[in-house]
C-alpha cells in the first residue's frame, strides 16, 4: 500500500462535508443550497474512492460513479425548479418559499 494514506482521504472528505453542511444550514439562496448539496455528495464520493483503494476493491469506485450520475440528475431537476419558481415568484429565498407547508 503506497501513496496517499487513507487518513488523508477521510480528512478531505470530512472538510468537504462540513463545508457542505455549513452551506445547507446557513444559506437561503436555493442555488447555493444546491451547490452545498453537491459538496455533501462529493464528500461521500471521496470516502468511497478512498476506501475502494484501501481495500483494493472497485465496488466503491462504481458507487462513486453512480452517485455522480444521480447528483447530475438532481442538479438538473433542482435548477429547473429554481428557474421555474423564480419566474413565478421573483424570490430567491427558501424560507419565503413555504406556501406548500402543511
Amino acid at each position, binding site marked *: 500500500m503506497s501513496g496517499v494514506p487513507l487518513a488523508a482521504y477521510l480528512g478531505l472528505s470530512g472538510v468537504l462535508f462540513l463545508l457542505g*453542511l455549513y452551506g445547507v*444550514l446557513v444559506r437561503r439562496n436555493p442555488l447555493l443550497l444546491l451547490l452545498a448539496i453537491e459538496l455533501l455528495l462529493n464528500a461521500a464520493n471521496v470516502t468511497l474512492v478512498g476506501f475502494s483503494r484501501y481495500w483494493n476493491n472497485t465496488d466503491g469506485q462504481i458507487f462513486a460513479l453512480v452517485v455522480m450520475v444521480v447528483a447530475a440528475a438532481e442538479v438538473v431537476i433542482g435548477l429547473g425548479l429554481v428557474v421555474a419558481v423564480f419566474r413565478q415568484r421573483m424570490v430567491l429565498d427558501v*424560507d419565503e418559499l*413555504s406556501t406548500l407547508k402543511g
Partner: protein
Amino acid sequence: MATTLGWLVLALPLAGFLALALWPGEPPKPVTRLIGAGSIGAAFALTLAIYAGMLSSAPDRRLHTSTLYEWIDIGGLKVDLAIRIDQLSVMMMLVITGVGFLIHLYATEYMGHEPGYRRFFAEMNYFVFSMLLLVEAENFLFLIVGWAFVGLASYLLIGFYYDRPVAVAAARKAFVINVIGDVGMVLAAFILIRDLGTLDYTQVFQRAPSGLSSNAAEAVALLLLVGAAAKSAQVPLHTWLPDAMEGPTPVSALIHAATMVTAGVYLVCRTHVLYQLAPAAADTVAVMGCVTLFLAATIAIAQVDIKRVLAWSTVSQIGYMIMAAGLGAYSAAMFHFLTHAFFKALLFLSAGIVIHALHGEQSLDRMGGLGRYLRFGYVTFAVGCLAIAGFPGFSGFFSKDDILASSLAAGSLGQALWVFGTVAEGLTAFYMFRLLFRTFADPEPPGGYTERPHGSGLAMAVPVAILAAGAAVIGWIQVPFGWSWVTDWLDPVFADSVKPQVLPTDNDEILTLAVSTAISLAGIALAWWLFFRDPARGRAAGRAMPEARETLEEAYRFDEVYDEILVEPGKELGDALRTEVEPIAIQGPPAAVVRWVRDFARGLSWAESGLVRTYAYVLIAGLVVVGVVFSVTVGR
C-alpha cells in the same frame, strides 16, 4: 303434543310481526291483511286444538311444561325458556287469540283509510306474541319479559298517531306508570331468588309454604301487586288507562279492554299460593279492587267522551276481577275475565262503528239519534250494555253475580266489599245505558249531522256480530244452582292451594241474585227515565250538581294531584340538576381533560415550524449527540 302446539301458537304472531316489520317497502294491503289477521287466526286454531286435546285427557293430566332452551345457569340459579300449558293459560290463550283474531279482522276495515296500515298490524301481532308469552311463561323471568313486552306494545299502539301530541303524551304516561309496575315485579323476583333460589312456578309454589317467611311472602305479594295494579289500571296507578284511549279503537278493544289490562288478574290467580301465604297482601288486593271498581263506576257517569266512558267502565270491571282474586275466588275472577273480554270488546268495536261513521267524532254532545242510521250498531251496543249491566240471562249477569256471591262467602271483609260491589253494579247499569241512550236515542245533536252517518262493511260487522252472540250467551257456561264449568275446569290449577278456593253457598247466591238484579234493573230504569223518556230531564240533572259533576268529569283530580306532588317537583329537580349540578359535576372533568389536551398540543405544535433548515439543525444536533454518546459508551 300440547307443548309443541303451544310453541307454535307463540311463534305464529311473532312470525307475523317479523314478516310485516321486515317486509321491504310497503306490502300491498291484501298481503298485510293476510299476514296480520291470518297469523292470529292460525294461532287461534292451534289453541283450539290444544283445548280439544286437553278435553280428551283426564283433568289431573292437563298440565304440560316444555323447555326449549336453558337461558340462565349461574350460581345455582337455573332459568329456562320454558312454557306451561295448563287450564289457566289455555283459558287466557283462547281469549287472546280468539277475541284477538276477531279484532284483527275488524281492524282490516276500520284501519283501511289510515296511513301506517302495515305498522298497525305489525305492532298488533307483536302485542299478541307478547301477551301469549306472558301467559305461557313457566317462570317469573319470562313472565316479566312478556309483562314488559306488552307494556312496549301498549306504548307503541297508544302512540300510533304519533303526530298528535296528546297521543304521544298518553303513550309516555302509560309507559312510565307501567315501568313502576315492572320494577315491583323485578324486586319480587329478587326476593324469590334470594329465599327460594328458583323462579320456576312449579318449584316456587312447592317451596314457598316452607321456604318463605311470612314477612317475605307479604313483601313478594305486595310487590307483585304493584305490577298488577300498574298493568290492570287499579287505584292509585289507574290514571294512564283513560288517556290510553288516544290509540285506535281496535287497540282499545284488544289491549286496553279484553286482554292486557287483565294481566293483573291472571298474575294474582297464577301466584295464588303466594297470596294465600300473605293474607294482608291478599286483603290489600281485594280492597284495592273494590276502591277501584267503585271510584271508576262513579267517574264513568259524568264522562262525555264515548271511549272514556268505556275506559272507566273497564277500570271498574277489572276492579271486580281483582277484588274477587284478592278474596280468593279465583275462578269467579277468571269467569268475569272471560265474559268481560267478550262484552267489552263488543262495546269498543260497536263504539268504533259509531266513531267510524262520524269520521272520528267521540264526544257524546255531538251524538244522538244514531239508532236511525246505525241500526246494527245500536243492537250490538245494546247487547253489550245488557251484558255489562248484568241484565238477567246475559253473560255479565252470571259472572258478576258469581263474584259478588263469592265475596259474600269470603268473611266479614268480603261482606263489606259486597255492599260496594252491589251498589257499583247499579252505577254500571246506569252509566252504560246513559251512554247507549245519549249515543243512539233521540234527539239528534243541535244542527244534525253534516253528512248521513254511514254503516260499516262485512269485515267490521261479522266480528261484532260474533262478539255480540258471545256476550249474550257465554255466561251460560256457569249457572248458579245448575252447573259450574269454569270452576270445574280451573279446579286442578288451584289444587295446590294452601286454603280452599272461596265458593258461594246457596244463601249467598240467592241474596246476591235478588239484590244485584234489582239494583241493576233500577239503574237501567233510571237511565231510561233520564235520557230516553225525556232527555231534557237528563240535561237538567247534569246542571243541578255542577260541582259534583265537575269532580267526576275530572276523575277526582288524581292527575292534578300527581302533577302537583310528583311531576312538577320532578321537573324542578331536573331543572335544578341541569343548571346547578350538571355543568360542574358532569361536564367539569371531561372539559378539564379537553382543555389540558388542547394546551399540550398547542405547545407541541410550536416545534412544527415548517422551516426545513430548522429540522436540519435538529437532525444534525441529534446526530452529534448520538455520535458523542456512542463514542463515549461503546468506543471504550
